[in-house]
C-alpha cells in the first residue's frame, strides 16, 4: 500500500527552530507531564484517604530527591501550560495574532512560568514545608 510510505508528522527535521514551534512543542510536553502528574495527584489523594501511615510514606517519596525534581517539573509544567493555554485561548477568540504580539506573549508565558515556579518554591522553602 503506497499510502504507508507518505511522509508523516512530525517532520521536525525540516523546520527551523523558533519561538513559535518551540513553545508549541513545550505546551505538548508539559501537557503530557501533567498527565503523569494527575497520576501522582491521585496516588497522593488515595494515600491521604488511607490514613496517616500511608500518607507519611507517600510524603517521604515526594520529599526524596527524585520526588522533588518531579514536583519542581510539575510546578513549571502547570504554570507554563496555564499561561500558554491562556495564550491559546486568546488566539481562539482572535486576539494577538500579529507577529510582535505572538512573540511577546510567548516570551511572557515562558518568563512568567519560570518566575512563578521560582516564587512558589521560594515560598515553600521559606515556610519550611519542604
Amino acid at each position: 500500500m503506497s499510502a504507508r510510505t507518505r511522509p508523516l508528522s512530525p517532520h521536525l527535521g525540516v523546520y527551523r527552530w523558533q519561538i513559535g514551534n518551540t513553545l508549541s512543542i513545550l505546551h505538548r510536553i508539559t501537557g503530557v507531564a501533567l498527565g503523569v502528574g494527575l497520576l501522582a495527584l491521585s496516588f497522593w489523594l488515595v494515600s491521604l484517604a488511607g490514613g496517616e501511615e500511608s500518607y507519611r510514606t507517600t510524603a517521604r517519596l515526594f520529599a526524596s530527591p527524585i520526588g522533588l525534581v518531579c514536583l519542581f517539573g510539575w510546578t513549571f509544567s502547570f504554570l507554563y501550560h496555564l499561561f500558554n493555554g491562556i495564550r491559546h485561548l486568546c488566539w481562539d477568540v482572535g486576539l494577538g495574532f500579529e507577529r510582535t504580539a505572538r512573540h511577546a506573549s510567548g516570551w511572557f508565558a515562558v518568563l512568567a512560568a519560570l518566575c512563578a515556579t521560582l516564587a512558589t518554591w521560594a515560598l515553600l522553602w521559606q515556610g519550611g514545608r519542604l
Partner: protein
Amino acid sequence: MSLRSPLGRVLGAGSAKDGTGHWWAQRVSAVALIPLTLWFFWSLLLLPALDYTTVHTWLSVPLSAFLAVLLVAVTAYHSYLGTNVVVEDYVHAHAAKLFLMLLLRFLYVLCGGAGIFAILRIALSP
C-alpha cells in the same frame, strides 16, 4: 445502500470525522481548569503545613472536597483529550494507535475514579 449524497457524507467529516466536538470540549475544559487549578495551587501554598492532619482537615471541608472532585474530574477529561491527540499525531500504526487510545481511556477513568473516590472517603468519613 445509503441514500445520502456523496457530498452529504463528507460534509463536516475530516479525516478524524469529528473535529469540532473534540476541539470545543478541549477549550471548555481548559477554561474550567483555570479557576480550579489556581484554587488548588493557592490552597496548598497557603496551608501552614503539608502534614497529614492539616491536609486531611482541609480536604474534609465540603467546599474543598467538592472543588477537588471537580478538579480531578475535569483534569482527567482535559488530559485525556490532549494525550489522545498526541497519540493520533505521533502513532501511525493502526493497531498500536487503537491500543494506546483504549489504554489511555481506561487509565484516565481508573486514575480519575480513584482520586475522586479518595476525596469522597476523606470528606464523608466521620
